[in-house]
């Protein structure tokens, strides 16, 4: 049978999630080798948790067909001005998804 399966739908913050909506987090800046789904452009940048999405296998495991580690995923919102120094529009934002291990807490 197929290994692929839908992620668990978890629209609300599950009990074991490390972060909650509104928390500030910094994306880890780890070296790249072979594969990643954490884009270079968000590495090291502080954003805000916009949603807790689901729990699923982390991409680094699934990409190599490991029966991988399940983690909570989040949608993180960044200010465009924090990402691109030349950016002209104060209000604009970008959101992207990340599993928990890529996020460090930021003290407010």
């Amino acid at each position, binding site marked *: 049978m*197929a290994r692929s399966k839908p992620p668990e739908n978890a629209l609300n913050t599950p009990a074991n999630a490390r972060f909650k909506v509104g928390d500030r987090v910094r994306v880890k800046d780890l070296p790249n080798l072979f594969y990643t789904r954490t884009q*270079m452009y968000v590495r090291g940048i502080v954003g805000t948790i916009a949603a807790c999405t689901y729990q699923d296998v982390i991409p680094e495991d699934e990409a190599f067909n490991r029966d991988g580690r399940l983690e909570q995923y989040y949608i993180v919102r960044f200010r465009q001005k924090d990402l691109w120094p030349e950016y002209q529009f104060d209000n604009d934002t970008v959101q992207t998804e990340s599993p928990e291990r890529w996020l460090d807490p930021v003290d407010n």
Partner: protein
Amino acid sequence: MSARNELRHQQELIASLQPALHVPQNWNYEVDGPLYTAYVHPPHDVGGQFDVPVVYEEKEEEQWELDTYVTCEVLGWRGVWNSEERRRRADNDLGYALYVGVPYYGRWILSAARMLVDKNHVPLTELVEKIAEVKSRYGKK
């Protein structure tokens, strides 16, 4: 590739597929820092890279493109690979030149072919013999 002339042209073309760095690369003693990072950067992570305005086209779908999509999905359905291995990692493993150089579904079908061999479902000899047989079946030189 019997004609030597043809071979030379083909090899020149292959050698020109070096989008990373157009300088002689015979003695790569020191590949460090940004250059190393650039080389090991997964090709699919393109967000924020510079590019110029283009006309954003639609494309009518080729029959082989639909068949490729379905083949890759059915291989997932039957548990031969998962989506993360396929569309995602395997496309990167093709390398930068192929990643940017072939059609969207070209990446998919090359990745599927590679996976069949990597996972020992099909010996490479059988794959190339099959390719030769299909070419001959349709009269392709």
